[in-house]
């Protein structure tokens, strides 16, 4: 505290940077390992496109047609018959998936000391999904960082690094999708407690670019049950919003009604833009959530 700022900075840049980096890295393997562990529960199959195209796998022989180049002829097959055949490969195109994980303060909420915060669950699911996708040969990117989607193990490490940071200062997050590739897939992981307009805008923007995907709402069980009573001042996690009530128990019905409305709204938004919506509670198993997410991407792929 009494040190001049310059000294502090140089100290941070010096050996301390390394210590901090190591501290940061020490958490990485567990998160990655946890995500890999979670991902390993989803059985992987072949993910061919079931049609001919660019790829490595053999798809079919077809007789030559007008417009085919002569070099495409498979002479070995053609020699066994009178017709010339063209050897077609299965189309294997890597898909780009962009994941947005809400990093706002509201995600840091946990209704119970023994339950992980919503952000932990969101990050775990995001990374596990990434692991699955990378194994399937897709390109994955984090919308939060803005970096383009990439494939490969190294990308996983980058993602894990990006996902182990601190939560941001904002109270509620708004989906941000800078440089969302056209026709990519997107997954939004958030509690969607903030202003719904931001979500609408992001969805509209994504729909414009032909992007489909999933809205995945993660809630704490406490947010579903509202087990409060008595005179209470409710504050948002960042402290920017507050609401005082004399009888919290009286508010329960109306709160639950509003929450249901919010869910309906999200589902409606998803439906009109061709997305999928699901709500997940941190009290439930992460595995079912991952399965749902994976299936949702399969469907929209």
């Amino acid at each position, binding site marked *: 505290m009494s040190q001049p700022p310059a000294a502090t900075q140089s100290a941070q840049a010096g050996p301390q940077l390394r210590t901090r980096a190591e501290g940061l890295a*020490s958490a990485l*393997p*567990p998160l990655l390992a946890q995500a890999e562990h979670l991902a390993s529960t989803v059985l992987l199959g072949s993910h061919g496109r079931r049609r001919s195209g660019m790829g490595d796998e053999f798809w079919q022989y077809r007789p030559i047609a007008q417009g085919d180049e002569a070099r495409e002829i498979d002479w070995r097959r053609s020699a066994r018959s009178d017709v010339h055949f063209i050897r077609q490969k299965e189309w294997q195109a890597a898909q780009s998936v962009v994941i947005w994980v809400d990093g706002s303060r*509201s*995600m840091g*909420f946990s209704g119970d000391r023994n339950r992980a915060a919503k952000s932990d669950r969101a990050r775990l699911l995001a990374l596990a999904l990434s692991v699955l996708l990378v194994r399937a040969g897709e390109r994955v990117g984090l919308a939060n960082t803005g970096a383009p989607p990439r494939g490969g193990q190294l990308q996983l490490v980058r993602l894990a690094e990006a996902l182990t940071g601190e939560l941001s200062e904002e109270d*509620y997050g708004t989906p941000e999708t800078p440089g969302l590739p056209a026709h990519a897939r997107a997954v939004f992981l958030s*509690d969607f*407690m*903030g*202003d719904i307009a931001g979500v609408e805008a992001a969805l509209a923007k994504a729909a414009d670019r032909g992007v489909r995907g999933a809205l995945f709402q993660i809630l*704490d069980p*406490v*947010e579903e049950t*509202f*087990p*409060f*009573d*008595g*005179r*209470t*001042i*409710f*504050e*948002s*996690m960042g402290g920017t*919003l*507050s*609401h*005082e*009530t*004399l*009888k*919290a*128990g*009286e*508010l329960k019905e*109306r*709160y639950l009604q*509003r*929450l249901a409305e*919010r869910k309906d709204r999200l589902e409606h938004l998803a439906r009109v833009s061709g997305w999928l919506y699901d709500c997940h509670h941190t009290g439930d198993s992460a595995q079912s959530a991952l399965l749902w997410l994976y299936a949702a991407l399969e469907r929209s792929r």
Partner: protein
Amino acid sequence: MWMLGPIGFTAPLLLLGLIALPILWIILRAVPPAPIRRRFPGVALLLGLTDDETQTDRTPWWLLLLRMLAAAAVIVGFAGPVLNPQVEETGSGPLLAVVDATWADAPDWSRRQDRLAALIEEAGRSGRPVALVQLTDLPPGPPEFLSADRWVSRIAGLAPQPWEPDPEAQEAWLAGLGDARFDTVWLSDGLARASRAPLLEALEARGDVRVIEGGRPALGLAPVLYEDGEVKLSGLRAITASEAEVAVSAIGLDPAGTERALAAATLTFEAGAAGAETALALPHELRNRVTRFEIAGHRSAAAVSLTDDSLRRREVALIAGRDDREGLELLSPLHYLEQALAPTAELLHGGLTDILPANPDAIILADVAQLAPAEQAALTEWVEEGGLLVRFAGPRLASSEVSRTELDPLMPVRLREGGRSVGGAMSWGEPRALRPFAEGSPFYGLEVPQEVTVQSQVMAQPDPELGERVIAALADGTPLVTRRGIGAGQVVLFHVTANAEWSTLPLSGLFVQMLERLAVSTRPASPSAEDLAGTTWTADAVLDGFGELQPAETLPGVPGERLASRAFGPDMPPGLYTGGDRRIALNVLAADDVLEPAAWPARIPVEGLAIARETRLAGPVLALALLLLAADLVASLWLSGRLRGGQGGAVALLALALMAPAPPASAQEADEARALLATTEVVLAHVVTGDQSIDRLAQAGLTGLGEALYTRTSVEPAQPMAVNLETDELAFYPFLYWPVTEGQPIPSAEAYSRLNRYLRSGGMILFDTRDGDIGGFGSATPTGRKLQQLAGPLDIPPLEPLPQDHVLTRTFYLLQDFPGRYTSRDVWVEAAPADAEKVEGMPFRNLNDGVTPVVIGGNDWASAWAVDASGMPLYPVGRGFAGERQRELALRFGVNLVMHVLTGNYKSDQVHVPALLDRLGQ
């Protein structure tokens, strides 16, 4: 002090604070409970919602009432409420408190003490000087009038005495009072006695007299009599109004030597009767064991009746030298003895060898001269152990050679041949009378009747010791009775016959008295003064006022006459007195005593003993206020919604814990839990070395090994445990890892015996000297030397370096190296038997028995196995990929080791599979 009914207040002005309560009510009602601040993301959905009602969160009336009560209790508590405050007595001038302090006070002595303390404190409050006088223990001078607090501390030291006030001492004390004036309070024991009237008169002349009386009525037990084979008990009481039943128990030592109630009886007092009697038929053996009778539950010296010889019946064996004179009863040598002893003693008849095992108190040989050698030896032994042998002379003894030239071992003196005869038809002289008994003789004090004469007797040889052995002599000085101590017992010789042939002694009462003095017989009733004349008695045990037997420490001897007078005092308290072989019990009450209630003149005010106690209520009231406040706290928490779910349970539990302190979890339960944990799962364990870092390392190492086992094998170990050799049971753990440190304490002998038992019953210890980098096994590294010290007392078989075909090389993985953090090759295990041979065609020797009890090495395996909480290796091993390979091999060694411990030589038995298959094929 301000009084409200029976409650007074020391600070009544504080009660004005109660007026403020209504104001407090209004204030509390206006202020709603404080809100809780909660972080909740869903607040975004709450914005804009309003409460339906706005005034609901006023404090509810019952909570307000609770708080009001708490506040009121605080105010009342500090106002100092006192229940039954003591209102001061009137009167001034000095106050004399007179206490009887006799045995009749004893049953409720503590109440009397309380009353006395209250009395003196009261006098102290009004500034009166006080003096205290115990009538049974009068001070030598006039009473000391001192301030009350000086006396209060002395009250606890007062004790009732087991005797009555002494009228003479009381007179002397009254004379010493002079003309001082004072008021008197007399704490009476409620019994009438002659000395009361003069004292009361003298005290009334000096001021007002009040009497305090009450408590439990006096009860007493008269001396116990033995008549017609029954023990007669009689009780006395002072107040005769109603019917009453009193339980009396006979107390004595049981055969095991512990004091207990041997029998019980009930005394039933009829209404209006002052006495009650009952009889108790006790078997002879039991009766001899009884030491005292007492009224159960009545602590008073009079309620105890000690027993003495009068209850105890001695066993006396009578043996005569000749019993061939049938029909001549009066001439029988035993006739007079039987007559004299039958009322008071149990008589045994029979042969000497039959009688001796019954161990009688006394044996009387009447005119028995020669004993068989075996009888003589047995009798001598019996006498030396404390028996009393009484011999009577007679014609046989006179004519025998017994004790003629040599002193017979069972005779007190040598005898002259023939004896003598005086006053007979053929002799000169008069029959001789007895000389009065000399001082020092047991018969001293007995009256010698003139009609007792002796015609014949045996004569003692004049020896140097003769003088001191004579206890009775004739008028001319010839010994009549002689006595000699042998060992713990004694031999007494009457130089005359036991019948009236030689003398008239057996015809006289003196004969019975002499037998009694010799403790051959016992007297039936309490002794009279002449019975006891000339004797000296010492107190054996004395009674205190409460009826407890106390050892008589330095009390002086008491002459028999004083004993007979029963004038008890500090120099002669009631109790048990011994003189020689006899015991006399002096009880507080004599057979003819009567208890009567004291009668006071009508002018004297008589008060009861009960006092209304002053009780300060401030403490309870303030405690009530605290309780109310605690209830208010819980209620407020509940109202504001902070008592929901788990928290509510926690608070309730906390409240319960505050109410009743939970019993501390005992060490045994912890031990049990640990044993259960260790036995329900496979648990690897390491020995606590005392070095924290090494212990942590061992723990982490075993954790890492456990994880490797879990993932690779079907062994699924639980968390490893630390084992303290001194305190923990080892049998639960299949495998102990023992890192050797220099500073490790050598285990105790018990710990070594536990370790040896563990090794013999199939346990395994992996000793790790952790110095594989600097020296091989057995070299002089510090930990190597320590290992030699540690393992010295252990029961370890011969060792050899791990051979190539040892089962450890193939229990799970195929291994030839056993690296840990270091790669020394020296790993030692139990040596193979010398006759182990390699069979042709087999890959290894035939070695199938037992698990090696120890594996010793220095490769620091724990470091190679150790992982941190997130499962990452803790310590670097080697360099680069080769290092990781080394770590992997270390883990494989660990897996092999645990497999070896758990499966034994299973893998070695595989050797026989080809042979078995071959045989099955045939």
